């Protein structure tokens, strides 16, 4: 297979241009419109044997379709001396004089743009395409020929972190961030370009990724990171132990703010940031408040970075919905997304009937983030006493978030359940499965505690990170640990989804 076209194709292009290929491709290969699909359905049959399969090709010179498997396109080429044909399944060009398929950059570009057009006409977002290096990237790969193959027992990406005096809260969050697959891909692909690197937390994290993946095994000291957090999130400055959850949120916030120094804003909504932190961690939480008098619904959608889950018995529970404390993550999520009666003391003015009424409120997931972070509220602070709830909460390795989505969970949505999707809008494309990749634990009591992290370094390979100590762990150890912060990563990333919403 030639990778730079062939003389026969070049001669053809010089005489007739790229128009013949364009037309064949847009009608019979990709079908960029409904009309094209109808034409394709009706006329894509072998002119000799009438089959629609068996590697159908179209002659590039005249109007002729022929199958390859039974030799009908070959026959046509020979008798008519039409030596170029287009494969109708993939759009590749077959040159009978060279005796093989040939690539051509110009025609490949045409094909690419028509695939996108076709995906849009079917409202499928964007078709999947494998990554191809740009010219710059290809040059870099050639200049740096050393490759590292990741094998099952490789310890790549693992590095201990020195405790600087009660900084285990920071160490465990850094371990979780470093082992967030998509964040790792972003930083190792060198995607952060910064206007002021010296004061930027994103640059520091970028630098940390280099350190973690350098192959050096000596533990790292995060003094610069700590100093940057102290400067940019003043409430965390000081030498005492901090809450790992608070640190996590503060870190995301600072990272998000520093990303904004080089903003990528979404066209339709100038307030919606599209920085890497938002792309990975931000979801949309839908809140539906239903007026009990007129059944009017007022819906708001708010962004979230994590979901904080109550572990105590349902507060003020009465009626059929009351239940004991939750015992699993799924219990917690079920409770979190349950319609809750706001009670007579919390009357809200209904936007529909304009009167103060009792209402119910329900939270559901409108849009899921790529990384779903759950915070089990184990620390209870009240005026009487602060205490830690150490009850066992089971959490799964694989989590399907579908039951907690707005369209599944609440009856106020007007989407109909349609077993047969229309015109390519396939429900199978919405996949909400997640896998666990990091768990942060708090060991000990409220006064004297220590944070450790379990991280998944690669598929089925778990490690426990206890400051400078890294030890291999079993999945069972992870799943039976207490769990304070749970991090799940989406299993399947929808291609080009961002451009659609």
């Amino acid at each position, binding site marked *: *297979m030639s990778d730079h076209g062939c003389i026969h194709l070049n001669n053809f292009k010089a005489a007739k241009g790229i128009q013949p290929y364009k037309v064949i491709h847009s009608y019979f290969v990709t*079908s960029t419109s*409904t009309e094209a*699909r*109808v034409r*394709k*359905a*009706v006329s*894509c*049959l072998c002119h000799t044997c*009438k*089959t*629609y399969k068996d590697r159908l090709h179209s002659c590039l010179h005249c109007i002729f379709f022929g199958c390859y498997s039974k030799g009908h396109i070959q026959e046509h080429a020979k008798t008519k001396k039409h030596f170029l044909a287009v494969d109708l399944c993939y759009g590749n060009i077959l040159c009978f004089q060279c*005796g*093989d*398929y040939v690539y051509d950059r110009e025609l490949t570009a045409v094909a690419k743009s028509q695939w996108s057009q*076709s*995906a849009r*006409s*079917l409202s*499928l977002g964007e*078709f*999947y395409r*494998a990554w191809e290096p740009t010219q710059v990237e290809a040059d870099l790969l050639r200049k740096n020929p050393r490759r590292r193959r990741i094998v099952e027992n490789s310890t790549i990406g693992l590095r201990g972190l020195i405790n600087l005096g009660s900084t285990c809260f920071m160490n465990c969050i850094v371990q979780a961030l470093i082992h967030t697959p998509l964040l790792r891909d972003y930083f190792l692909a060198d995607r952060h370009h910064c206007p002021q690197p010296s004061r930027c937390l994103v640059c520091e994290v970028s630098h940390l990724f280099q350190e973690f993946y350098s192959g050096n095994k000596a533990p790292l000291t995060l003094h610069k990171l700590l100093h940057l957090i102290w400067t940019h999130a003043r409430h965390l400055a000081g030498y005492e132990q901090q809450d790992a959850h608070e640190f996590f949120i503060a870190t995301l916030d600072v990272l998000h703010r520093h990303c904004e120094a080089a903003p990528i804003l979404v066209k339709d909504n100038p307030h919606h940031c599209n920085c890497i932190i938002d792309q990975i961690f931000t979801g949309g939480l839908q809140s539906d408040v239903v007026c009990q008098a007129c059944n009017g619904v007022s819906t708001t959608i708010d962004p979230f970075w994590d979901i904080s889950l109550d572990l105590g018995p349902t507060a003020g529970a009465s009626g059929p919905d009351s239940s004991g404390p939750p015992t699993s993550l799924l219990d917690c999520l079920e409770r979190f997304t349950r319609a809750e009666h706001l009670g007579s003391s919390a009357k809200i003015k209904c936007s529909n009937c304009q009167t103060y009424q009792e209402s119910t409120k329900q939270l559901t997931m409108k849009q899921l983030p790529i990384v779903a972070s759950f915070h089990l509220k184990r620390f209870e602070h009240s005026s009487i006493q602060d205490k830690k709830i150490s009850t066992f909460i089971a959490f799964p390795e694989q989590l399907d978030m579908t039951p907690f989505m707005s369209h599944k969970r609440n009856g106020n949505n007007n989407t109909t359940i349609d*077993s*047969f*999707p229309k*015109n*390519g809008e*396939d429900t*199978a*494309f919405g996949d909400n499965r997640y896998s666990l990749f990091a768990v942060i634990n708090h060991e000990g009591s409220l006064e004297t505690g220590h944070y450790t992290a379990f991280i998944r370094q690669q598929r089925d390979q778990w490690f426990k990170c206890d400051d400078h100590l890294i030890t291999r762990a079993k999945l069972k150890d992870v799943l039976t640990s207490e769990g304070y912060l749970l991090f799940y990563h989406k299993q*399947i990333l929808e*291609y080009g989804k961002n451009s659609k919403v």
Partner: protein
Amino acid sequence: MKSAPHQRLVMVGDRDALKELLRLRLVECGWRDQVKIICKDLIKENGQDIAYDTLLSTVTSRARSLVPDSVKKELLQKIKNHLMAQEESLKS
């Protein structure tokens, strides 16, 4: 498949959607990478001038056997659903 139902699948865009779903599933389960490695090895063995047809005849049966049953099942079920929906709409 007879050609009339196939034509209708093409016409409404279902064939493209199913094809895209299949492509996604094959990427997700690692099939695409597996087949890519097989092809790469063959090209290394035979030199880069190996003809497409030679490559195809060597790789096809191996590639086919590597497709996970779950993927085949899902696709079969989906195709069946689409065809049944077609039949329904023709009746009414």
